[in-house]
């Protein structure tokens, strides 16, 4: 068994050479570029798109691609390209903030629980179990009923829904690390709880937690569509990409761009985010600490 193996030190594999921007490697750099491109679209699209492009009945319903309307028309005859570009701000920004928020909060609590142990661990863990057991539809409805609809509320709701999942994975990773010799040593050395959490444990769970963040991002993107249907957050005519897929589902049987385009947009964004988190130097960070 490996229990006797000394705490980790610089490993051969993590010394791999990295290329590209910030040492992200080629795929990571590509992913970053795609995210930046979508962010640019998110910020700039409203000023690109003329008011008339969103007019109902401007084109035939589900019109195919044509010059000037490169993605055809949606279920109300609105220019689909404009819809996708405008949708970027609701998907990219909302989902990024919510996913990072959920992961950060979940990981933070998990570190606290793993390092502290005892009653704090119990309270946090069982609290998260309780939170995850509340049906998310019920939770979303009560948020709408209590606070009305707004984008910050949407971000909060999406983040809260995914905090317990992130917490559970992070805690499972962290308890393994917290039990390792060097952490025990640091603890007996009298290091503060914060030091243990941030300097000893966090770097060692960063890599898998980034993978978890990448997936959580995907989930948030998909969740947005069902939340906006419940009246939370993004209100028509604005729409996030998931909602665009859903409202144009009627074009699927003929492979209509109206449903394919937003689905592809989601795929490129989630792929890019995951390429970046895969390439982020989580392992190198650990090396730097040890």
């Amino acid at each position, binding site marked *: *068994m*490996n*229990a006797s*193996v*000394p705490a*980790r*030190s*610089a*490993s051969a*594999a*993590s010394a*791999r050479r990295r290329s590209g921007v910030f040492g992200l490697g080629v795929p990571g750099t590509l992913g970053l570029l795609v995210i930046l491109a979508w962010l640019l679209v998110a910020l700039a699209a409203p000023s690109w798109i003329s008011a008339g492009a969103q007019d109902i009945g401007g084109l035939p319903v589900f019109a195919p691609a044509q010059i000037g309307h490169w993605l055809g028309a949606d279920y109300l005859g609105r220019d689909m390209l404009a819809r996708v570009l405008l949708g970027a701000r609701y998907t990219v920004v909302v989902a990024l903030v919510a996913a990072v928020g959920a992961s950060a909060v979940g990981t933070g609590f998990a570190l606290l629980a793993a390092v502290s*142990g005892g009653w704090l661990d*119990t309270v946090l863990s*069982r609290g998260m*179990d*309780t939170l*995850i*057991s*509340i*049906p998310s*539809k*019920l939770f979303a*409805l*009560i948020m709408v*009923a*209590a606070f009305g609809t707004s984008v910050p509320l949407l971000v909060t709701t999406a983040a809260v829904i995914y905090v317990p*999942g992130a917490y*559970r*994975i992070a805690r*499972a*990773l962290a*308890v*393994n690390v917290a*039990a*390792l010799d060097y952490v025990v040593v640091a603890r007996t050395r009298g290091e503060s709880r914060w030091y243990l959490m941030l300097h000893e444990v966090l770097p060692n769970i960063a*890599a*898998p937690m980034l*993978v*978890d963040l*990448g*997936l959580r991002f*995907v989930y948030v*993107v*998909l969740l947005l*569509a069902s939340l906006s249907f419940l009246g939370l957050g993004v209100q028509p005519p604005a729409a996030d990409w*998931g909602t665009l*897929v*859903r409202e144009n*589902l009627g074009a*699927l*049987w003929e492979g209509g761009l109206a*449903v394919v385009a937003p*689905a592809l947009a*989601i*795929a490129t964004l*989630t*792929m890019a985010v*995951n390429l970046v988190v895969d390439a982020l130097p989580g*392992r190198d960070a650990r090396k730097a600490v040890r």
Partner: protein
Amino acid sequence: MSPLLRLILQRLGLALISLLLVSVVVFLITAVLPGDAAQELLGQDATPETLAALRTQMGLDQPLPLRYLHWLGGLVTGNPGRSLVSDAPVMELIGNRLPNSLLLAAVTAVIAVPLALLLGTLAAVFRGGWLDRLLNNGAVVLVSVPEFLIATLAVLLLSVKLGWLPALSYASDIDSLSGAARVFVMPVLTLCCVVVAQMMRMTRAALADQLDAPYIEMARLKGVPPLRLVLREAMPNAIGPIANAVALSTSYLLGGVIIVETIFHYPGVAKLMVDGVSQRDMPLVQTCTMIFCAGYLLLVLIADVIGILANPRLRHAR
């Protein structure tokens, strides 16, 4: 008493507290949501007179704490009351559908979990190679396709276009093995697309993390065969997070499959619960929540126990 057994018993005790807490929270939420069961049932046809009469029939005129205690008392004695909107016993409604949900979840899990573990392990072993990239990115692309899109595409292709499979699945039509297989193919396929990615990527991440660790390097230098290296040396340290990812995905299969149930008309409990929320059918929603919550707590307890058993440091600590 061994520490592990004590932990399990302690967790089971805490689970009861969690369940109680969840039931209170859910009860309070349903109580303050706009609309009660009487209003939702009568909708546009509500008049003050019929509303009042229906509220009395449903027992909604009783004070909130009393209703809660009444439901709780019933639950403890195994009878969580009657559904408000259908007047059928909650146990009967759930009993008709829970087996279907469990069956679907079980079939999906039996396929998805080993598949995800296998693919994740392969990706970790060949990390950085083309197979790893293919599996990793393929999983992300697959999970980023909305569930309703996958399900609808499957129906379009396999039922409408090719005519191989029935578009709808009534579980009561499952009388032969081949019939059951035909009914289950598309729901299981859809759900696999949803849950495999998380388990697979978590397996890969946790395992790769260990495989890069120096102790594995040392073992490799000592000449430990690759398969043993992965399964005996690296896996025990990675199994905790993997088991948790599996537990999270499996719990989703139990209660979160509303889209699959809707599109394939599969008679499971997820739709029962979502309808219950819409109709403010409190006894039904709460009992469903209790079942999902208990299932979830059981799954994560198993995951935690696996994590502890696999890691000697945790086994002997505390």
